[in-house]
């Protein structure tokens, strides 16, 4: 049990997918200008990663390994993620218009989010069992959503600050991201 808690804390805070592994930088810079957008993107990423991780994990151990097709994992995972995003979007469009209003526009962006593929591949390369896979697949997108939301609150305040002209926009945002990254690396001592 303590191993699972450690894995959860590690995946959310210490090995944070954005600030430590530098994955998912496109939505991190692109969708962090407003708190509402960051929250919508964060929730959509959590949903898609958890579902994609479970489906790819099952597909790998129940189809690819018995057929001896392990070398197909990368192409399989990419297609599964893309299909899953289409399915999720269609389902939400049909049955939950309110959810589509808040998440729908971010779903196609997630298809190209490398965090999703990274989680699916790490689950296989680290040979996690089902419980570890589930914890890691929940923790990683939670860390992504957390950092995205914190960063959006910083960027909203930056909009009101008197930033020197040369640093305005993405310049000061990247400096803030670097400081955040250093701050998060200090959490390594808690585990």
């Amino acid at each position, binding site marked *: 049990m303590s191993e699972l808690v450690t894995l959860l804390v590690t995946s959310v805070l210490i090995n944070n997918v954005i600030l430590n592994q530098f994955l998912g930088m496109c939505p991190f810079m692109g969708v962090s200008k407003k708190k509402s957008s960051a929250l919508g993107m964060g929730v959509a990423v959590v949903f898609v990663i958890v579902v994609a991780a479970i489906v790819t994990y099952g597909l790998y151990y129940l189809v690819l390994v018995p057929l001896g097709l392990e070398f197909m994992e990368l192409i399989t995972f990419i297609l599964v993620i893309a299909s899953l995003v289409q399915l999720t979007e269609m389902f939400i469009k049909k049955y939950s218009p309110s959810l589509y209003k808040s998440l*729908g526009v971010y779903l196609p962006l997630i298809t190209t989010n490398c965090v999703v593929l990274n989680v699916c591949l790490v689950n296989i390369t680290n040979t996690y069992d089902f419980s570890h896979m589930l914890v890691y697949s929940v923790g990683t997108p939670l860390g992504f959503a957390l950092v995205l939301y914190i960063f959006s609150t910083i960027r909203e305040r930056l909009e009101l600050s008197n930033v020197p002209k040369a640093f305005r926009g993405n310049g000061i945002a990247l400096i803030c991201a670097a400081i955040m990254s250093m701050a998060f690396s200090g959490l390594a001592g808690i585990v």
Partner: protein
Amino acid sequence: MRYILAALFFGILVLVYIGLYLMNKKTPLPEGCEDLKADCEGCHDFSCTHHPSHYMEKGE
């Protein structure tokens, strides 16, 4: 035999993706969601459908 299986499996995955893509495209948008746009100005990937250049009028 393994490579035939691999090709078959790949074909099935592609067919599933195409099917789901077409079904998703045919599903009507809910009311009030016809003109949703992501507030994304992050990277300079012009092929991304969320890039603001796709929503600009000509000459803008």
